[in-house]
């Protein structure tokens, strides 16, 4: 199999075809690309991903698309024509993995469902991503990220104590779903290496979310206890919360031992609290948590968040600022670790992207931005599929590679 991808990393030599939209599917592809795989996004002018168009006129310079598609290749193939589908099948023959997160039933209508793909490429690893998975009584239902979170049990646990659920930020879910799909896909690659066989992988977004609260479900399974919103509190620690500081900033404090509790009362200049009958051990603090939180809030309120964090960390207390987007973008640690990193764009300029959550001794190079639409047509049609320039021109003339 011809592959000009030499960025190193554990998945170097693996080729992935992406038939994906928006965020979750592209995120799976991004993770595989960051691990060294050659990831080719099949796109077409006729069915452009919304992230290529959202809020911009230049489809090759769309910030949302660039955010989730670095280190990928782009090829233009019209999925609404039979010739286009044949071309995609030819490309799949030269690949190891197919990732799709199109609407329920879409791949079947296109003629790119697992059975069809398997008939031309028997050992394909075919990863299908859906809100509720590939089949079952509710699989016809559709939704966006916050729907996954709501259905999964996640949203019911996020909110202020005693108030209705408020749910996670609306952006949560797609990327976690994408990671679960990437993990299952790579596990299947291991199986393929052992025995040469591919398989069908059916990933459920809702179940991926449920996996982030497994222990809460155990509480119901073992004790019949339906957990509800806890605000910033925890059954394991008290204090465990987010408290106001000067200038509308907030400090997060978690007290994980009797020693650090004693230390906190010293820092508050209220050492008597550590022997106060309401707060002298964990059970009592948990029982009197409202008054405990009020005391801490009225103390933290007059302090500068960053200074207080430094002071508390010095004496061993788990404390930090709740980071706004300014804090996050300015975070020295994330820059030092090259989590934020510069990449080359195809027009020669540079831009900054968000790196992966890992560092790896022998990882893949990540130094290219997202592709222009069809930037790799010549490589895919010429080098991978071996089509003559004449044949490529014909396809272009017929609008198949638009």
């Amino acid at each position: 199999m011809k592959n000009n991808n030499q960025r190193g990393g554990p998945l170097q030599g693996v080729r992935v075809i992406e038939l994906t939209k928006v965020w979750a599917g592209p995120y799976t592809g991004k993770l595989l690309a960051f691990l060294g795989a050659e990831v080719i996004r099949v796109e077409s002018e006729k069915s452009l991903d919304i992230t290529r168009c959202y809020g911009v006129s230049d489809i090759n310079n769309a910030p949302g698309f660039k955010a989730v598609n670095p280190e990928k290749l782009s090829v233009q193939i019209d999925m609404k024509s039979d010739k286009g589908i044949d071309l995609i099948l030819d490309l799949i023959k030269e690949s190891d993995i197919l990732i799709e997160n199109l609407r329920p039933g879409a791949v079947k209508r296109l003629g790119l469902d697992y059975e069809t793909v398997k008939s031309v490429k028997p050992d394909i690893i075919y990863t299908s991503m859906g809100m509720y998975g590939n089949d079952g009584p509710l699989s016809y239902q559709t939704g966006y990220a916050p729907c996954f979170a709501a259905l999964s049990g996640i949203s019911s646990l996020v909110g202020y104590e005693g108030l209705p659920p408020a749910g996670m930020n609306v952006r949560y879910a797609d990327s976690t779903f994408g990671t679960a799909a990437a993990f299952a896909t790579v596990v299947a690659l291991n199986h393929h290496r052992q025995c040469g066989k591919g398989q069908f992988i059916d990933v459920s977004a809702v179940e991926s979310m449920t996996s982030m609260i497994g222990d809460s479900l155990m509480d119901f399974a073992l004790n019949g206890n339906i957990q509800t919103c806890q605000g910033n509190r925890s059954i394991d620690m008290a204090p465990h919360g987010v408290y106001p500081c000067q200038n509308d900033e907030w400090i997060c404090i978690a007290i994980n031992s009797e020693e650090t509790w004693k230390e906190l009362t010293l820092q508050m200049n209220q050492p008597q609290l550590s022997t106060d009958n309401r707060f002298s051990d964990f059970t009592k603090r948990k029982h009197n948590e409202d008054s405990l939180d009020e005391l801490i809030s009225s103390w933290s309120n007059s302090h500068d968040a960053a200074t207080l964090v430094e002071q508390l960390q010095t004496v061993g207390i788990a404390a930090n600022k709740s980071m706004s987007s300014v804090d996050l973008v300015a975070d020295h640690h994330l820059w030092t670790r090259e989590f934020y990193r510069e990449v080359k764009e195809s027009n020669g300029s540079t831009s900054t992207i968000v790196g992966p959550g890992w560092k790896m001794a022998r990882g893949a190079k990540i130094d290219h931005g997202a592709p222009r639409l069809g930037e790799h047509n010549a490589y895919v049609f010429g080098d991978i599929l071996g089509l003559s320039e004449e044949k490529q021109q014909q396809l272009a003339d017929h609008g198949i590679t638009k």
Partner: protein
Amino acid sequence: MSALSGVKVLELAESVSGEYCGKLLTDFGAQVIKLEKPGKGSPTRYLGPFSNDIRDEENSGLFAYLNTDKYSVELDLDCAESQPTFLSLLAQVDVVIDDHNASFLASLGLNRSCAEKQHPNLIICSITNYGLEPPADRKHSEDINVFHNSGWGYHTPSGADPAFAPLNGAGRFLPSYEAGLEAALCISSALYEKADSGLGNFIEISKQEVLASRIDYVLAQMISGDMNVGTDRTAFDLGGPAGIFPCEDGYVYIWLSTVSHWEGLRQLLDNPEWMANFPNNWLEKECTPERVSLCRQQITEWLTTQNKHTASEQAQKLGVTLVAVNNAQDLIRSPQYQHRQFFVELNHPHMGKSVYPGVPYLLSKTPARPRTPAPLLGQHNTELLTEKLSNALEVTE
């Protein structure tokens, strides 16, 4: 047999992130040997929920969930006499999972520079809150700290009221589960390469970076100057009338962003009068705060007499993305979860029969699932220490 059968893992981890990572690998058939402190065991054995409120090391539902199919071996890593045993175990495994810190790894000769020389074939994965070299103001942290240090806390919930504190995510350990999943992805990738090259790898997972990378769609636009940054609590939000609404028997979530959603809603509500004053494309083009507020108010009124599951069924058939806000009980009863066999029943010697959350991916050839309950403390001491070691010693002699 599953995709990772034959893979051997040594788990030094003692908290949720590393233990969850190990669990994800055992679900696919890897053999995970968990080292535990003699007589005491993993700290997660002492965290709830406890079965029947019995607070001892064999009744933690958390430990039971995180450690299905693992082997428990008691070994005191602080004791010099344990060293030969430890080295012998190390020589037998492909992967080491840790979630302590840099000095812990160094004390075992498993820091990167040592490991590359001494154990070139070993995949070592470290999971920490901020990487192996945290800055001075992040030496001490729990999951909630990392959540609030990743941007997620400050921007949760969507449409936050600035008078209320930034909010923690779902459950106690979301950052740990996210990091454990990332670690499992990296380890399985490294295993794929090792099968060919024979080489190990050193993987370092930072929970902060995992969480921040999960918001890449927004954060990358901010870091490249394409989206405004500021101290606004709604900086990650999308606006519009979408959100959680109360209904007769709980809550539903409704997403509305297109003309077709609006048309579906009109049918669902039987073309009510108030909708006549809204332009058809208002969700896309003319989404004013007044309209959002009126729309939310009317939907709330309609929902007071609606059941969450029947309302979502009707709505979905009309193309309206309305779903139930489910809780644990809803999930165990969900026909979809039952169809996919998400929950798995296991019989634990102390806690008895119970269902456990399974996996979100169905693989046609190499299915994954928990199969045997978590080990009792030291359950495999004899099998893995006494027998293996005497065999190893015989070989040496």
